[in-house]
């Protein structure tokens, strides 16, 4: 059965203190790993799609990387506006349509 876990559950950083969020997955044939940002009371906002081990993508202070078992979302010199919940999701080969499984998320707080 496809599974996604994320760690830590919550992370508190000082402004400018870089760190990484982890997404570990078990899936039968990865067809895509997705990162989202969700602000309170809003729907998830798409950040990245990764497809194969070794792939990296960047957007402003965020960089996502992928291995065969996990993905990391690196946050460089975070600002308070980066505070949000970050969700990871995967799509596997067993799915017959565009279905994804979401992890529980990491709640990030960046303190000024």
């Amino acid at each position, binding site marked *: 059965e496809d599974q996604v876990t994320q760690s830590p559950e919550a992370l508190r950083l000082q402004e400018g203190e870089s760190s990484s969020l982890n997404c570990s997955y078990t899936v039968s044939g990865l067809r*895509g790993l*997705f990162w989202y940002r969700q602000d309170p*009371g*809003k*729907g*998830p*906002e*798409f950040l*990245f*799609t990764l497809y194969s081990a070794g792939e990296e993508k960047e957007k402003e202070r965020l960089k996502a990387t992928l291995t065969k078992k996990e993905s990391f979302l690196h946050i460089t010199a975070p600002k308070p506006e980066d505070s949000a919940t970050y*969700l990871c*999701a995967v799509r596997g080969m067993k799915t017959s*349509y*565009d*279905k*994804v499984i*979401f*992890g*529980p*998320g990491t709640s990030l707080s960046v303190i000024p």
Partner: protein
Amino acid sequence: SAVISQKPSRDICQRGTSLTIQCQVDSQVTMMFWYRQQPGQSLTLIATANQGSEATYESGFVIDKFPISRPNLTFSTLTVSNMSPEDSSIYLCSVVMRAPNYGYTFGSGTRLTVV
């Protein structure tokens, strides 16, 4: 990528009543997805809505409780029926986006509180 309008954005409902949530997309899409996000939890897929056919429900979700309509390629509704406080959640619709990146676009969600 597609823009999704979802309404209502929030509602407070009495137990035993029903609420219909609407999702309008600004482009034609084959499949629309409905998710539930319980307080402090991640997203759980309720069902997939294909235009012209019955929705496909995930384990633990049934049509009598969550009837879905998909009358055309840009619109869908989800009804939460005979509500109880345990149905208090955020409900989200989503569609696949294929350009410029493959991924999923979400509506802003409906925050439902059942009292």
